[in-house]
């Protein structure tokens, strides 16, 4: 599924560019959920932006493939059409554009890129209604402009709503737990777990172990200074929680 080899990447323009990803190697097979944990500044968000093609993030070496296809040369929307989805740590407000309009435009754009038919209005509405119900989202909310005036929890739930609508094949969740109370966290985790399937991979980026109580990872990686320095099972997350990054990182060095 997702295969990253010896990836290096910089952030910023020309002379100001700073190398943030330093030879990162990682493989997430289909059907698995991998967690990436690490202290602030380790390169977690950078990794998610590099994988999804944000401008200002430049790959200087290594490779990243999704199902064998090189994704690093693709435009962000092409990667999306190939099934890459990023649930943003800070979802962006889009004034004047209702959620339903936004998601439907995105969905049809992806379908067009894949050479598929557009979704019909009734099918879209039916699907939207089912998913909104599952995520306990108010139907009225979906008529409002994207993220405008939404609470932190609502924004995160809206990310999951979009994810479930678009049915991507690979998900990156960037700090999805931040800003969520425990009930919202459970709802969000249920949504994510419902997406687990043998042909879908997930990368869960998080600071805390808390989210991993609800979204059980197959593997946990520790990211530090732009590299994976330790990989283990779910118990590694528990150890990080107990001993702190310093304890675990100290051992790895």
């Amino acid at each position: 599924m997702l295969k990253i080899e010896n990836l290096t990447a910089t952030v910023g323009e020309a002379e100001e560019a700073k190398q943030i990803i330093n030879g990162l190697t990682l493989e997430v097979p289909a059907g698995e959920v991998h967690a990436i944990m690490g202290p602030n500044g380790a390169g977690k968000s950078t990794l998610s932006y590099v994988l999804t093609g944000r401008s200002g993030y430049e790959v200087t070496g290594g490779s990243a493939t999704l199902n064998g296809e090189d994704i690093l040369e693709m435009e962000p929307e092409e990667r999306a059409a190939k099934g890459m989805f990023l649930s943003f740590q800070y979802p962006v407000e889009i004034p004047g554009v209702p959620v339903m309009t936004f998601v439907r435009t995105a969905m049809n754009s992806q379908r067009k890129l894949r050479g598929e038919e557009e979704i019909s209005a009734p099918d879209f509405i039916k699907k939207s209604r089912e998913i909104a119900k599952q995520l306990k989202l108010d139907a009225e909310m979906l008529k409002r402009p994207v993220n405008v005036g939404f609470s932190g929890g609502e924004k995160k739930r809206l990310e999951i709503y979009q994810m479930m609508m678009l049915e991507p094949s690979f998900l990156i969740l960037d700090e999805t737990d931040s800003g969520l109370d425990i009930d919202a966290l459970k709802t969000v985790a249920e949504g994510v777990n419902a997406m687990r399937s043998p042909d879908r991979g997930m990368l869960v980026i998080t600071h805390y172990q808390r989210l991993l109580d609800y979204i059980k990872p197959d593997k946990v990686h520790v990211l530090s200074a732009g590299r994976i320095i330790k990989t283990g099972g779910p118990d590694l997350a528990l150890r990080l929680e107990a001993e702190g990054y310093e304890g675990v990182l100290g051992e790895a060095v």
Partner: protein
Amino acid sequence: MDCCGGTDEHEDDCTEVTVKEGIDAKTVEAAKALESENYSAGFSTEIETEYSPKGLSEDTIRFISAKKEEPEWLLEWRLAAYRRWLTMEEPTWAKVRYEPIDYQEYYYYAAPKSGAKYESIDDVPKEILETYEKLGIPLREAEVLLGVKGAAETAATAREAPRVAVDAVFDSVSVATTFRKELEKAGVIFMSISEAVREHPELVKKYLGSVVPQSDNYFATLNSAVFSDGTFVYVPKGVRCPMELSTYFRMNAENTGQFERTLIVCDEGAYVSYLEGCTAPMRDENQLHAAVVELVALDDAEIKYSTVQNWWPGDENGKGGIYNFVTKRGDCRGPRSKISWTQVETGSAVTWKYPSCILRGDDSVGEFYSIAVTNGRQQADTGTKMIHLGKRTKSRIISKGISAGKSDNTYRGLVSINKRAEKARNFTQCDSLLIGGRCGAHTVPYVENRRADAQLEHEATTTKLSEDQLFYARQRGLGEEQAVALLVNGFVREVLQELPMEFAVEAQKLLEVSLEGSVG
């Protein structure tokens, strides 16, 4: 004058942005191709054009007046305006720059051109057809707009739903028969102003120049002297005009000139919705447009005036393009009358335009909804004036300026509350959106208030189309230009909602086309 709203100038920082070679350049090239096509030997014989003597003089004006078989009073009216114009100076206060205009280099009268520009649709440059397709204009309509031989006839038979007035542009037969009859039955007068001068002289004489007097401003005075043609509408007492009126279909029958004059009068309790303009990238050789639009709303009358303007903005170096110096003003003459201006401005090299309302009648209402897009090297200085004279008059201004490329976009507005205008209210909202780092947005709101009980609100924002928003949309699968279009549509939604349905859809597509290549 006190300036309560203050004057903010928002200049943007200067980061490097490369402007992609987009459809704009293509359109320009296509337009150029058309120009040369026009002069190529094969077609020149088919074009019948009758010009007045070059330049401006009393003789030119007499020539125009005689051609139009105008009555003596109108000739005198024109001459008076011309003599006044000679004493005036071209205004320079707007934030626009252009080469000095040599008024003696223009022809002030050119009879309608006839004859086909293309033998068949196959001769039309591909780029032009692509542009039409992007605008969602059906091929048949495109053929007519481009002047393909015989297109008007086939388009007329192809269209069999004459209920929507906009459709009627291509159907000169039904304009002359169905619509005119229907409008006549309702008592609505809708014709060219030249015809109106002949058929309804008393109405024209009564209202012409009553909102925009001859002496108003340099360009309006020039227009008064040489106006070529335009539209006249009169809706009688208590009549709700049964359909939306549009310049579309009248223009097809008769090419209006560069000095249009529009006069719309709504008698007591009457209502009309008028659409001006054309979303197609119309070919237009005229450099200078100095139109005058006058609206008169009597007691309880309502006029809704919508414009979509997409004239040639000039090439990427700022050469060519239309100078659009327009005076548009509405007079809410009677109590409880209402005038609403909605404009979508995407074309022209230089725009100088302030559709305004004089709120004379007590409880009258003035509205101004505007979207002004500038790209490339376009310059727009546009806004409105709301002059509150009557009691409890209300006005509302929503202006959305979008600047891209190396363009400059200025909102200039005046809200004036007169001594008699007790409890007048105004709400002004000016939002600017910057795309890229080499454009400018400026907001210049003036307020003159003579009443302590006036209620004035002013909101202004300047935002940059954010990298965050663009990336978010692209991550979800939208292409870059589609993402820009969606974000821009969100930004202008409040104004788009004010447009009649079919117009709004076209305006939306037009925004997309005019902003193509603005990011990159």
